[in-house]
C-alpha cells in the first residue's frame, strides 16, 4: 500500500482531489483578496479570515507538548547553520535599510518592495497565495509528528508491554 494512503487511510485519488480542491480554493481566495485595497474594511476582513482560521487549526491540530525535530548528525552535521546565517543577513540588511537616512526609494525594505509588487493585481494575488500556502504548510508541519505518534500508538499491539 502506498505511504500516502497508509498515512491518511484515504485513497490516493481522493487525496489528490482534496489537494487540488484546496489549491483551487486558495487561488480563488487570493484573487478575491488581490481585488481589495489596504486600509479598507474589505482588506481587513479578507486578511483576518485566514489568520483566524490558522489560529483555530493550530489549536485543534497541534500537540500541546512538542518533541524537537532531531536529524542524523552524521548525515547532516550542520543542517540549520546556513539557513540561520541567511536569515540573519536578511534581517540585518532589512534593519540597515529601515534605519538609513533618506527616502525609502533609496533604501528599499522588503515591505516597500512588496508594496510595489502589490500594485499589480496578478502579482498581489500570487503573493497572497504564497502567504496562504505558507500558512497551510506551517499547520501541516507542526501537526505532522503528532500524527506519526498517534499512528504509532494505534498500530501498537494491544497486549504489548
Amino acid at each position: 500500500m502506498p505511504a500516502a494512503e497508509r498515512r491518511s487511510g484515504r485513497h490516493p485519488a481522493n487525496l489528490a482531489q482534496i489537494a487540488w480542491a484546496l489549491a483551487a480554493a486558495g487561488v480563488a481566495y487570493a484573487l478575491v483578496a488581490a481585488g481589495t485595497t489596504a486600509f479598507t474594511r474589505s482588506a481587513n476582513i479578507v486578511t483576518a479570515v485566514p489568520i483566524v482560521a490558522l489560529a483555530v487549526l493550530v489549536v485543534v491540530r497541534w500537540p500541546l507538548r512538542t518533541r524537537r525535530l532531531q536529524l542524523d548528525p552524521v548525515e547532516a552535521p550542520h543542517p540549520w547553520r546556513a539557513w540561520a546565517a541567511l536569515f540573519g543577513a536578511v534581517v540585518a540588511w532589512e534593519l540597515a535599510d529601515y534605519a538609513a537616512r533618506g527616502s525609502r526609494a533609496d533604501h528599499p525594505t522588503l515591505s516597500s518592495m512588496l508594496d510595489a509588487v502589490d500594485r499589480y493585481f496578478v502579482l498581489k494575488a500570487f503573493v497572497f497565495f504564497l502567504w496562504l500556502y505558507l500558512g497551510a504548510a506551517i499547520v501541516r508541519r507542526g501537526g505532522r509528528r503528532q500524527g506519526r505518534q498517534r499512528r504509532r500508538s494505534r498500530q501498537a499491539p494491544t497486549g504489548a508491554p
Partner: protein
Amino acid sequence: MSSAVSYAIWALLGLATVLLWARSRAAGPSPARPAVVLERLATGPILRVVLVLGWMWVGWHLFAR
C-alpha cells in the same frame, strides 16, 4: 549610498536563497530542506509560537495594515 547598491544586496540575498535551496536538495551532507526547516520551527515549543505570530503579522502588514 545609492538605491542600486541596496537593490544589488537584496538581489544577492535572493540569489543566496535560491542557491541554498538547490544545495539542500543535493545528495550528501547538506543544509536541511526548506520543508524540514519549517518542521523544525513548527515543532519547537517557543519557535512555533514565534512562527505563527510572524506569519500573522506579515499577512496583516502586507495586505491589511
